[in-house]
């Protein structure tokens, strides 16, 4: 990737790395506004001078909030647009309008894909290994999540910088929403696998027949339904453990 005549590759990398701290000053009022300005500042200081720099800084302290991974294509594209603006080129849309138009959809897409799908999938695969006592589960989780997430962060930044408005087409071509739906089916499969393994292993330890394993699916689905209906998972867990405790004591009393 070749830097423009204004921004060197070094500055662009500096901006991309600063984006790792995008959320450091997250606040309820304007969310990632200061983080955005902090991130693009090395680029701004090169592009703008004097009063113009002050005006642009002031403008970029307005509200901004997006997913920390998919914010990078917006940052890259905004920087390129600011560059074009400073050269006096006509823009189809103002940089502020572009930022606010992109932030919401990128947040929705990123939250759903990275936090709602990829992270649970990577974590559930790692949990399976961890329950078996395997320490590599930690490495597996970090790799499964971070290889795509870090890859898309930096790739997204460079794509944004290279394509300006057209980064929208690139984001669409990644089809993250479709991929998230497919990966969610894989997540459910892994959860089924974990349940089967836990039931098979656990029933051996409590010295019950493996036939009891078939009752796991309805019980899990019932508890899941209760949680979905609004029962807190914390209350559910404490209730379940208390029931177990009381049940075992009652069994002991009956046996005596």
């Amino acid at each position, binding site marked *: 990737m070749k830097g423009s005549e204004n921004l060197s590759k070094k500055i662009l990398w500096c901006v991309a790395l600063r984006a*790792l*701290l995008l*959320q*450091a*000053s*997250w*606040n*309820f*009022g304007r*969310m990632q506004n*200061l983080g955005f*300005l*902090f991130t693009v*500042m090395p680029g701004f200081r090169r592009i703008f001078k004097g009063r113009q720099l*002050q005006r642009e*800084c*002031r403008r970029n*302290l307005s509200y901004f*909030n997006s997913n*920390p991974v998919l914010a990078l294509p917006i940052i890259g594209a905004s920087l390129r647009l600011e560059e074009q603006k400073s050269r006096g080129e006509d823009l189809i849309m103002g940089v502020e309008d572009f930022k606010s138009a992109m932030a919401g959809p990128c947040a929705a897409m990123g*939250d759903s894909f990275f936090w709602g799908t990829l*992270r649970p999938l990577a*974590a559930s695969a*790692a*949990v399976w290994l*961890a*329950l078996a006592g*395997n*320490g590599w589960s*930690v490495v597996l*989780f*970090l790799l499964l999540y*971070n290889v795509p997430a*870090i890859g898309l962060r930096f790739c997204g930044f460079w794509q944004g910088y290279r394509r300006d408005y057209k980064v929208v087409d690139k984001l669409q071509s990644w089809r993250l929403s479709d991929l998230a*739906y497919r990966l969610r*089916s894989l*997540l*459910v*499969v892994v*959860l*089924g696998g974990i*349940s*089967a393994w*836990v039931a098979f*292993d*656990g029933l051996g*330890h409590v010295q019950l027949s493996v036939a009891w394993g*078939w009752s*796991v*699916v309805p019980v*899990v689905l019932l*508890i*899941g*339904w209760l*949680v979905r209906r609004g029962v807190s998972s914390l209350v*559910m*867990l404490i209730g*379940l*453990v208390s029931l177990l405790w009381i049940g*075992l004591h009652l069994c002991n009393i009956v046996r005596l």
Partner: protein
Amino acid sequence: MSGFPYFIAAFASLVAGLDRTAFLQIMVSRPIVAAPLTGWLLDDMQTGLYIGAFLELLWLGRIPVGASIPPDDTQVAVGSTCLAVTQYPGSSVPVVAFSILCLLVALPFGRVGGFFDRLARRANGTLWVRAERAVEEERYDRLTWLHLQGVLHFGFASLMTFGVILLGGLVCLQILVPVLSGDLPLVQPWLRLAVPLAGVAACLSTVNFRHAVWVYSGAFLIVYCLLLLFG
């Protein structure tokens, strides 16, 4: 007991807590990483692995969307691992059951994490106002420092949450362990069975997938049959 393990755990709490929002977000803050990391630093990774796995399943589906702040699972993971390692009463008490007890004790205090997190975010609200002033005065170097102050706020919130979980947990364990430790060997195998399944149920309830029930049942059926045949 020396305070050294608590300092180590506080260090893990700070690193994992910063990763949660302020810095990197490479998921060191997830219980599946934070708990084993704390366990490893305290020389008992296995305990951390169990706690991390149980907690990860339980709160897997909770995501911080927009301004919503979920309970601080990071500090619960670090705090309960620290409690499980430092307060372990001895070989008469099974490790997994004691770890689950520590987790159950720490979980309600995780809600406190939300309070400190909100406090940090409110404190950050003053930063951009001061940043606007710095821009007016053309003191652009100050912007970096103002932004990085947010890291300090989040770090402070993490340590405070960890402290509350640790202190609350220590008090609860002092009361509960003498009462419950005799029952733990009896309950351990049941807990090993029930707690992960409860976690799976909680996670499954958050998955937004149309045929989740059928796919889940089918996957269970296939894996369970394979385990019966070859396990």
